[in-house]
């Protein structure tokens, strides 16, 4: 298709115009394209096109040992490397039956909830940016996010590509000072959430732009396998932290926020409310963490050979259900390594949410899905 064919600029009333949004477009959060068919301003068809960032992560992982896949998982959803690590190590632990000491479980919860907080802060900032609130909210969000990344750096050595978890535990122990720093930071985070909420929650423009836009009905959300805050915005109470109770999540008291309209506004509020719940979990985890080993000394990291078999491990990542499906044939490399990428599967219903909307709403609907192309394309 030539450019001329793609963009027919002089479409009269009732005429169909095809627009290729992306792949290089500031609203697509990466290299992502939407083939949109418009009737005037109204979307009548939308096909997501991706794969521009595809590097066949799964094949790379199948060629390497179990240990060497961990740093690659950092690069899936590159904003949340800690939770990606966790999903993978959880699957390997299930596959090989590796126990995890309690302290390591607590550290995992702490870093995972910090990850969730910074992901949601960033997402809300980007979403508001998509709506035209350029810069200010995003900078506030990034300011707080940086503080969390600083903590990650002093713990694991890297801000984003943490490569921190190992099957059977975590790589390095955290010091008492580090825990104290986290404690101090989460003491300040609720104020940030309040301010952030006050900034725009009651804003009339935001309400007009988001309420009733990009509605995702409950039944469709379930059937299309939508997970994470997006699913809960549609009113389905399904949070893997509560359902599977992996790690030590059964020990914490927290609520699962639920929306009831399933529109962009609900999805936005879901993130704000989940940030608050994450702070609650962090407070409890910091209170209850006890001393102990971070890894069973018998665990073999290098040259792990699980028995032939398969396992599916999943966690509630900030974007939804992040799962890893591993098939072992008894050798050092996984025979099959499969990622369940939440943000790719959440894209399945992008068209359904956008049909009949204005083209400007496509941008914010996509923004509210929270995609990261490293994970969508793998």
């Amino acid at each position, binding site marked *: 298709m030539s450019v001329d064919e793609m963009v027919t600029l002089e479409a009269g009333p009732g005429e169909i115009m095809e627009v290729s949004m992306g792949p290089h477009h500031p609203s697509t959060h990466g290299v992502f394209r939407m083939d949109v068919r418009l009737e005037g301003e109204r979307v009548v068809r939308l096909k997501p096109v991706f794969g521009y960032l595809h590097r066949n992560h799964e094949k790379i992982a199948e060629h390497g040992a179990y240990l060497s896949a961990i740093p690659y998982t950092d690069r899936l959803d590159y904003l949340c490397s800690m939770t990606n690590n966790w999903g993978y190590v959880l699957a390997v632990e299930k596959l090989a039956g590796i126990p995890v000491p309690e302290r390591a479980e607590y550290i995992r919860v702490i870093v995972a909830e910090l990850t969730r907080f910074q992901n949601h802060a960033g997402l809300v900032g980007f979403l508001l940016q998509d709506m035209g609130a350029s810069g200010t909210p995003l900078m506030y969000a990034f300011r707080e996010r940086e503080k969390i990344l600083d903590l990650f750096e002093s713990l694991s050595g890297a801000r984003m590509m943490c490569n921190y978890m190992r099957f059977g535990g975590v790589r390095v122990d955290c010091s008492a000072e580090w825990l104290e720093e986290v404690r101090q930071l989460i003491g300040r985070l609720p104020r940030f959430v309040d*301010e952030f909420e006050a900034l725009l929650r009651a804003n009339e423009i935001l309400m007009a732009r988001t309420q009733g836009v990009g509605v995702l009905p409950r039944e469709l959300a379930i059937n299309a396998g939508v997970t994470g805050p997006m699913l809960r915005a549609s009113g389905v109470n399904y949070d893997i932290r509560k359902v599977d109770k992996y790690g030590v999540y059964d020990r914490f008291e927290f609520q699962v926020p639920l929306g009831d309209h399933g529109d962009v506004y609900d999805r936005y509020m879901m993130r704000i409310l989940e940030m608050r719940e994450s702070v609650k979990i962090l407070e409890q985890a910091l209170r209850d963490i006890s001393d102990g080993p971070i890894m069973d000394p018998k665990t073999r990291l*290098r040259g792990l050979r699980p028995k032939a078999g398969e396992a599916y491990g999943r966690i509630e990542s900030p974007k939804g259900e992040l799962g890893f499906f591993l098939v072992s044939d008894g050798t050092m490399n996984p025979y099959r390594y499969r990622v369940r990428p939440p943000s790719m599967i959440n894209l399945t219903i992008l068209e359904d949410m956008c049909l009949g909307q204005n083209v400007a709403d496509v941008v914010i609907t996509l923004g509210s899905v929270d995609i990261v192309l490293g994970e969508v394309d793998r």
Partner: protein
Amino acid sequence: MLGEGIIQGLLETARNFFGSYVEKDRLVTVQYPEQRHPLPEASRNFPFLLYDGSEPEAGLRCVACQICEKECPPRCIHIEKSKDKKPDFVGKQQFYPAVFNIDVSVCMSCQICVEVCPFDAIRMDKVFELSTSNRFGGLLWTKRELAKSNEYYQKIHPTEAAECDDRREKELAEAQAKAAAAATAKAAQAAAATAGAGTSAASANGASGNGAGAKPAEVPAKTTVTP
């Protein structure tokens, strides 16, 4: 009232603007490159090779066991083993890398090479301003660029380096004690042999000749891989 939400939002912006003059929490940026945030101790970038003493080439701890080469996820390490051997810090004869290259443009700073190295020979550096205008050779580091002294390591990762030095000292002491014990045992054996039967004197001589000298008893390869 219409516009109330907008005013509320503007108040927040104002609070942040004026707050940034007084509150450190609201002003987090620095004027790079004149000002810099200090890097935390754990921070990591690209690997370097440690050497003891003052000779980068001679003091390299790496014994070219090639474990890191095999475990490096993007396979960016290239090692060629030497033909001859040289003594390591406990005096044991070991190979050394004739060639040790890391393609830093491929390296993903994952630290797995550091974790798997059983000889404390490779560590993570903190330098990050590494841009070069040479696309294909500029970031291929050889032994020469990679070798950094133990003092440098102590400077950038003090806690970790202290632990590492302690461990190596202990190991050295153990190896020396073992060598001494083996030497005395050999001597005693030789003495007993000469005292016992005069006929076995020749073999006893041979045994003591083996035991003495630069080659102490086998030191088991250390397997303290940091998890």
